[in-house]
């Protein structure tokens, strides 16, 4: 119970205060980006859970989407002489100076969820990220397997134009689909990663493709756009999940709600558990001196309607998505 209380204290805003170290084996400072999305909130809550599991004293600093706050937080972690620093970098560049300071203080830094530029250098111990090209491939492979030999016209809801995640998820899906001559992406348009735009774009896809009769599957770069697209299909008198197959990426709770209702088919999980593998890597490094690989790739799990979506929904809904 005391540990839990300690935890609540460390999670609260004044977490930069030094806490007694004897309650935990390791003290780790985590510079989190801020609350930019539901996934980010889930990552923070899962990090706390994983830390509690391992009796790690985790100090989270919320940077409110600002790099200067992250740099300040890292300097403060160095001053407190923490055992390791986790960093979810808000931007890719401009980290050299502060990471050198951490290196001089002999504090290992682990990047979570995003890599920095220049990548792979000596400035950090390892980066725990997912491979968004691979996520797209997993989605494409599922579709190819599900459709079989039938001809299938796919419409694609892209993420924000210029976002690297969107480009990668498109690239991976294109690669998987290109292997099958019967699969064809007939329309592709950006839905800006939002429900409202996903719905609007899907409405236009349906009209442009003969009231939706020519569409066999929808691929969305994130689940939120798919939730919007599902509404658009329903309003057009189509049955999403049956008339039109759906596959998207992220695995947010609401897509499982749609799966339970039979309106969505598959999603590829972008796990919010980036901290778990990072804790293990740091522990191994500290105890046995094992140097982890420069990149720890998280698993991109495929979850379909047959994978007990209700259970997934229940386990995810409390995480802050």
């Amino acid at each position, binding site marked *: 119970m005391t540990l839990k209380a300690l935890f609540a204290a460390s999670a609260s805003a004044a977490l930069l205060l030094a806490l007694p170290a004897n309650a935990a084996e390791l003290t780790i400072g985590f510079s989190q980006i801020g*609350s*930019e999305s539901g996934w980010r909130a889930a990552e923070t809550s899962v990090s706390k859970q994983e830390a509690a599991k391992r009796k790690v004293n985790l100090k989270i600093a919320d940077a409110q989407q600002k790099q200067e706050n992250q740099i300040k937080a890292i300097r403060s972690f160095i001053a407190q002489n923490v055992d390791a620093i986790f960093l979810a970098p808000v931007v890719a560049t401009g980290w050299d100076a502060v990471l050198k300071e951490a290196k001089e203080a002999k504090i290992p830094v682990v990047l979570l969820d995003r890599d920095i530029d220049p990548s792979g250098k000596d400035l950090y111990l390892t980066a725990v990220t997912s491979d968004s090209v691979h996520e797209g491939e997993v989605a494409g492979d599922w579709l190819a397997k599900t459709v079989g030999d039938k001809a299938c016209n796919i419409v694609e809801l*892209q993420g924000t134009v210029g976002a690297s995640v969107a480009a990668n998820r498109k690239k991976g899906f294109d690669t998987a689909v290109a292997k099958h001559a019967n699969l064809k992406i007939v329309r592709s348009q950006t839905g800006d990663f939002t429900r409202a735009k996903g719905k609007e774009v899907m409405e*236009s896809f349906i*009209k442009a493709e003969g009231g939706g009769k020519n569409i066999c599957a929808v691929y969305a770069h994130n689940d939120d756009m798919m939730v919007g697209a599902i509404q658009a299909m329903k*309003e057009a008198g189509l049955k999403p999940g049956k008339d039109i197959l759906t596959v998207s990426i992220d695995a947010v709770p609401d897509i499982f709600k749609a799966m339970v209702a039979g309106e969505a088919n598959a999603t590829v999980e972008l796990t919010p558990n980036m901290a778990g593998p990072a804790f293990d890597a740091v522990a191994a490094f500290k105890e046995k001196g094992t140097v982890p690989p420069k990149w720890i790739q998280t698993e991109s799990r495929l979850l379909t309607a047959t994978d007990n979506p209700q259970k997934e929904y229940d386990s995810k809904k409390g995480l802050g998505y």
Partner: protein
Amino acid sequence: MTALLPRRGLAQILALIVILAVDRVVSPQFFDLRLQDGRLFGSLIDVLDRGTPVALLSLGMVLVIATRGIDLSVGAVMAICGAIAASLADSYSLPVVLAAALGAGLVCGLWNGFLVAVLGMQPIVATLILMVAGRGIAQLITEGRIVTFTSPDLVWLGNGAILGVPVPVVIALGMLILTGAVVRGSALGLLIEATGGNARASELAGVGTRAMILAVYVWCGVCAALAGVIAAADIMGADANNAGLWLELDAILAVVIGGTSLFGGRFSLVLAVLGALIIQTMNTGILLSGYPPEFNLLVKAVVVLAVLLLQSPKLSGFAGIMARLRRANP
């Protein structure tokens, strides 16, 4: 009510017709309409339906601009009011939800109006405060997540239909008529224009300019609130990060396309709404065209430039001179 339909507006109507024609070319089924579950279904309906939030915003924005002001906070107000509506929808009845959301919009408008009219701040700075802070407030309400609801009453507001016409479209039309009746059915419109034309002279002439300015910001807040509720009802959830994002710019654009000068002094409600429809007709056309999304903004910019050039007095003067020259030297 003849004042509602101004003599000017030919350029806007022409632009709308041209864009509709282009839409028909890129998408042959553009004008097809059918009934789907008691609701009209077709691209034309999409234009009206999707154009509603910006049309509502432009109704408030045009009055603010007429007083030589500007309201950058409408997108954020949409997010706040959508968040409030979504959070309350499943535990309270629709009138309570609407009252809370519109009340919040009214308070936001009062805040802006207070800063501009009472404290004398420049409108662009005064409303920038709420533009930045408002999204944070909305995120606090939703705790950073997308708050979903199932209340059929609120869902109806976004996705229902009255005699086949989507409810948002009916609401926007109702608001246009209401606003028009209030400002043009009385001297209010004239007083607003006087305030924008020359606030000091109007003040000396006995116009309550402070009250006028306060009133237009409040109305702008209420319109934004309604747009926010409709946007939330549409996706059955409030997305504080994205609801109404950058729509303040679309609303200003709609007003400008509608021929209202940013220097205030005159305005047209109908043309502002027409401006919103022009923007949406173009957006829907782009989506239907099948062009890669990288072109979206480029196409939009070119079309907006063309529409504004069409209205430019210098350019129409130039065209007139050219025509006269041609007539003189055949």
